[in-house]
């Protein structure tokens, strides 16, 4: 049976929704990545400015097509990774993001997850396209949060087929 779900956001979600930090396209980004799909109602683009040697994220920003928690999660993550190395940034999980937001309703965990997926894609892209060398700490296999993004994108394809678009 289909149904609506109550969404008792923590105030931090609304705060970031109202006043998102680090919102918007970054023209001079070192790397860009996106995750999710508009067909699922959730998509995030992630921009990173990475300092060369130190691999420190000096600036990051996002764009989001998504619900309030999606926007808040992406914004929250950009705040968390500020001045962190790529390795440090990699290690943030959706649970960290959710916690920083005061707890997301369980149906919304995929929003936190999607932000993390987009960030990790950006980090992988950095090593694949910029340094062309993979550091030891970067797992070869996709992590859960990255897979989640893939799943959502696959679902979008299915939806498109279902509705014959």
């Amino acid at each position, binding site marked *: 049976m*289909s149904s609506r779900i109550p*969404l008792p956001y*923590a105030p931090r979600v609304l705060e970031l*929704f*109202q006043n998102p930090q680090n*919102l918007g*396209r970054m023209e001079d980004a070192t790397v860009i990545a996106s995750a999710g799909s508009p067909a*699922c109602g959730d998509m995030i683009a992630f921009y990173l400015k990475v300092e060369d040697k130190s691999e420190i994220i000096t600036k990051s920003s996002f764009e989001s*097509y*998504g619900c309030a928690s999606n926007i808040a999660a992406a914004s929250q993550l950009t705040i968390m990774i500020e001045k962190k190395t790529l390795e440090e940034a990699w290690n943030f999980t959706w649970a960290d993001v959710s916690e920083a937001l005061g707890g997301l309703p369980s149906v919304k965990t995929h929003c936190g997850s999607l932000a993390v997926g987009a960030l990790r894609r950006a980090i992988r892209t950095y090593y694949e396209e910029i340094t062309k060398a993979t550091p030891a700490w970067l797992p070869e296999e996709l992590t859960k949060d990255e897979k989640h993004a893939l799943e959502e994108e696959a679902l979008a394809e299915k939806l498109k087929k279902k509705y014959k678009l």
Partner: protein
Amino acid sequence: MSHIQDLLKQHGVPEREVYLDWINGSVVDKEVFDAMIPYYLEKDYGNPAITHRIGWSTLDFYERTKRQISQPLNVDPQSIAITHSFTESNNLAIKGLTKMYKGRKKIIVSEVEHLSVIHAAKSLFDQGYKVDILPVSNDGTINLDILQEKIDDDTLLVSLQSINHEIGTIQPMKEALEIVKDKDEKIIFHTDATSAFGRIDLDFSKTEVDLATFSSNRILGPKGIAGLYIKDGIKLKSIYEGQLSVEILAPDVENSPLLAGFAKAVELHFKNFDEIKNHTTKLRDKLLYGLHTSIERTEINGPAGERRAPDNVNVSFLGCEGEALTVESSMNGIYASSGSACTSRVLMPSHILTAIGRKPEEAHGSMLMTINRLNTEEQINYVLETMPKVIERIRSITGGIEL
């Protein structure tokens, strides 16, 4: 979960507030409320099937209110079953019928029926029923040719709503009914008239409609009470068991204050039927066309003009996600809902918007606003002034993401 109060504090109370989410919850009219008071506190609170003064007085009240409630449909009060909700009425109509009529095994519904109809029908799969789903056109109108094709000897029931609750399509009920009954009089015809009651003429006295669902809380009556019209001769069985009293199809529904409110709401609404219709139609068009012309990349969901419910506004703002839209609107004091997947437990967009061929990203960006007689032109002006800013901000968050 106790942080909801903090959430509300963070949200704040906007200086101006316009409620346009009547389909999801509603106050009762002050006069309706006044009519309920005595039945909560002092009068006719008994069981109408008990032989003492309070019981008889309650019975008298019960019969008088049922008479009032049946008037807009122009049918015998005895043909109205009282239930707790339109959902229960729809379930009673569909499941209650299949308990009484054995043999035929096919139920035809449309793609855009309310979930209580679609799921009630599908719940009968395990009893060997087959459910045929009629497609609709891109304004939500039921495809009558396919209806004609699908009806066969095995068809027990056709259930088609009178007005769609989400995109306001007024369905060609008369034509559908003719097609069904011309083919086979024995096929039972049910219409979910919840969103039509008080919006269009529903005189069932001269029609062959067998079953019709209608409800109190769509006309500023209290929630918790609804009706099912059952044409004389149609047999249903209660969908749950208990002690029956005056109502023989639903246990435990005799509720005097709610009945008093329902009857009063009917009286007030139908006394002013034309006025309400003109008022809401005017505001509807102002809002619908206003949004469409002042905000680019905005699409109207559902039909325009005469074929649209007088109180329904539904548009998709491309490049916006619906939940974010409702939140941003809310912070500007505009309360409405969305067919976005993000507001649903199963993360799927509204089945109605996809049925009319909206792409998922169009469905996600939909906003449903219903107009009530309590809404004013000034409020609609405020909404028209404010929504461009709301959309602009949401689109600025979407930024360059390509949809």
